[in-house]
């Protein structure tokens, strides 16, 4: 899985590409765990390059969310494509995650001192 990560002002912006299913979710999960291990608590998932997500991909995102919420962190989603939005709506996870039109807007929502 092509996975681009940028960290700025304590916010990690993760930009996976392609499909997130049980063949690729472990790679995403491993990268998220690495960042959690580095004490990163605020995450933006830029989904603009994601074509498909299934329940395994959702599980990776929810797992991250539950861990960062133990502290003061959050997971915010950006550039959500239609298929991902439909799954988020179906599972009601769209009520859990703040969704922004762009990764820049999502990262900025944490504020300059995040």
């Amino acid at each position, binding site marked *: 899985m092509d996975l681009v990560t940028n960290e700025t002002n304590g916010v990690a912006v993760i930009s996976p590409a392609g*499909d997130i*299913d*049980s*063949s690729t979710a472990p790679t995403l999960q491993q990268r998220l765990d690495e960042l959690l291990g580095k004490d990163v608590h605020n995450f933006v998932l830029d989904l603009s390059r994601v074509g498909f997500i*299934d329940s395994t991909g959702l599980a990776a995102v929810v797992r991250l969310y539950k861990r960062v919420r133990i502290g003061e962190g959050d997971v915010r989603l950006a550039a959500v494509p239609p298929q991902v939005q*439909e799954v988020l709506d*179906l*599972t009601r996870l769209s009520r*859990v995650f703040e969704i922004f039109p762009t990764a820049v807007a999502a990262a900025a929502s944490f504020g300059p001192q995040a």
Partner: protein
Amino acid sequence: MQADLVIQSIPDELRLARGWLSDHARASGFSDREVRDLALAVSEACANVIEHAYRGEPNHPIDLHLTIDETKLLLLVHDLGVPFNVRDYRPPDLDVPQEGGYGVFIIRNLMDEVDYDVSDGTGTTLRLVKYRQGDGSPATPSRSRERLVP
């Protein structure tokens, strides 16, 4: 039209199943929304077979048989693994984010009919039906049903 596909019980094959079903559904006039729903449903179905029926073991077959006519799409997903017992299924609590358990819930909500047949004693045949709607709207939940053929 009818079509068949056999995939192996490894996650890398899920993309193949999604593409195969999407191509046939799109070519048969299903809307973009319906095609996305079908791709997700077959992906969840095959992922469940890999994880639960075959317990994560590779190199087992998952047989997909597709029939599309003027009213509906019928997909049979057959495996030779541990039979699925629908009575063990518990829907996820949607008020609390879950780290698992959405797969069958998603299938049931995207398809119009969902049946598990374990009657032949050689694994499970999952029967999925989606009726043509043509307006791109999702399956109506009230039409969804699920039953176990013992």
